[in-house]
């Protein structure tokens, strides 16, 4: 049998290097060696792959950042998403982990300079999805603290729930996130007000709640493994008005921790 032309030369071998290097930019030519039944390189046919990739990746970005899409409008959002995916294709087949650089991308995008809160809204949306997929764990019971003598409560340390996260913004990113996730108006929100939030999953549903900055200090101190007493002191230093009973009820309602014990107790003898 006579050798085919393609066997004599590598010129028409389309490697995955070649294929992928031409995939994300429609201005580039199509790979030689990929043909239609008429034997020609066919732009329309290769564009099906280009289109599938762009539609798939921008669709994933739209799914992960619905509040940003509502803020920008669908058309502007999709053009931004196309720019983002072309330069930042995913590095993992787990699409629910995609989009970690989208916040920085929005902040660096010159035409959006007047909306500096967008980056933090995107960060909260990304944390929302991390929380959604986090490991399951039973939060401590609402009456867990009553198992300990009142004078020893200051010595309690807590195990964080795998889904619980804190976020601090110098903008009103939490209110803006919530309004745009719920589809409500943004009346009364001053974007320049700094806001913090607690993101948690007491049951299957993700809960994003606005908390005072001192409460962030309180929870972060507990996340760092310090005692309830130390966390209360740190929060009061941040804000003398810190309301510890409200922080504790938030902690129990939002399922921020999975167990607690006295700091000197042996592991295992935890109050659930």
């Amino acid at each position: 049998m006579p050798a085919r032309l393609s066997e004599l030369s590598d010129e028409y071998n389309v490697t995955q290097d070649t294929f992928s290097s031409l995939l994300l930019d429609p201005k580039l030519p199509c790979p030689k060696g990929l043909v239609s039944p008429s034997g020609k390189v066919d732009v329309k046919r290769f564009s099906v792959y280009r289109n599938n990739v762009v539609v798939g990746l921008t669709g994933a970005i739209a799914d992960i950042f619905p509040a940003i899409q509502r803020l920008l409008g669908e058309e502007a959002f999709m053009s931004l998403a196309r720019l983002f995916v072309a330069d930042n294709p995913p590095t993992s087949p787990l699409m629910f982990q995609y989009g970690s650089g989208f916040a920085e991308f929005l902040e660096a995008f010159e035409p959006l300079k007047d909306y500096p809160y967008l980056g933090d809204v995107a960060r909260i949306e990304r944390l929302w999805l991390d929380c959604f997929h986090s490991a399951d764990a039973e939060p401590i019971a609402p009456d867990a603290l009553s198992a300990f003598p009142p004078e020893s409560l200051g010595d309690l340390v807590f195990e964080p729930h795998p889904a619980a996260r804190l976020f601090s913004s110098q903008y009103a990113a939490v209110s803006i996130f919530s309004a745009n996730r719920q589809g409500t108006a943004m009346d009364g929100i001053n974007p320049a007000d700094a806001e913090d939030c607690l993101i948690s999953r007491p049951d299957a549903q993700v809960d994003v709640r606005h908390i005072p900055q001192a409460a962030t200090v309180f929870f972060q101190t507990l996340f760092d493994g310090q005692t309830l007493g130390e966390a209360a002191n740190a929060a009061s230093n941040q804000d003398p008005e810190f309301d510890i009973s409200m922080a504790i009820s938030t902690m129990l309602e939002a399922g921020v921790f999975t167990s607690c014990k006295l700091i000197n107790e042996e592991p295992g003898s935890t109050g659930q």
Partner: protein
Amino acid sequence: MLNATPRPIPADHEYLAECSVPARAGAGLKGQHVDDILSDDYKMGFFEVHAENYMGEGGLPHQALTQIRNNFPITVHGVGLSIGSERGLDSDHIERLAKVVDRYQPGIVSEHLAWSTHDNHYYNDLLPVPYDQATLDRVVSHIGQVQDRLKRPILLENPSTYVAFEQSTMSETDFITEIARRAGCGLLLDINNVFVSATNHKYSPEKYLSEFPLGHVGEIHLAGHAEDKDDDGETLLIDAHDRPVADEVWKLYQDVVTQMGPIPTLIEWDNDVPEWHILRREAKIAEAILDAVPEHPLLGERHASAAE
């Protein structure tokens, strides 16, 4: 020939429903349908899930799938292994797949004849491979790697393609037949893909199916496609999974199951996902065709079932 017996069920993952997939119709599982499915008097034969959607640590997706798995057999369909990759498989991803398979005890595990990852970039699409010796050797080796880890055979799905590689030296059916023979895997026959590729490359889908090694097929996929035109104005079909199965595809399906006998058959509908009753209607059409298949299929040599 093909032994797809799943491993014994570990004690910590026992489900009320069987592992083995019946030769009935099933549907791709969508989160928004779970409540309707669980309250429906009609019980689907099985549900198929994309493995990657269940590779998170916990939360709602796992709660929903656990409920489904307690009521139905499931099949796990991977979309992210990049079996055709020139740079080898990601062993972390194989481990993630093994974890999903261990946890949910699917009756069937399948993947695609395609690649989707290159140089650490994941393109979220099933990209085509040339049908030449180097690709064949690579795909066989990659399937072996996956099957060794899962300790069970997988099914490999025929692709839908829009371009042909000039460097190909064999037909798609010869290529796939050789993969199944050498890797000892089963095949997932996507009849919509056959129709899409046959139209796009101007060959006869009936001839393709007559050359396809049906004896290795453990599952069939059916889906809807969209229609477009290429640069020459010729019909270009797109594997869109966004509408009902086309009449021509139903006809091919009927011919195939008449030949091979009843077989697990999945309706895929991944974009513009309709309400549950519309997807169920498609599955019922497949089920009616399966019910009408003669008891003694023409293809006597077919293995009892790749899925049992």
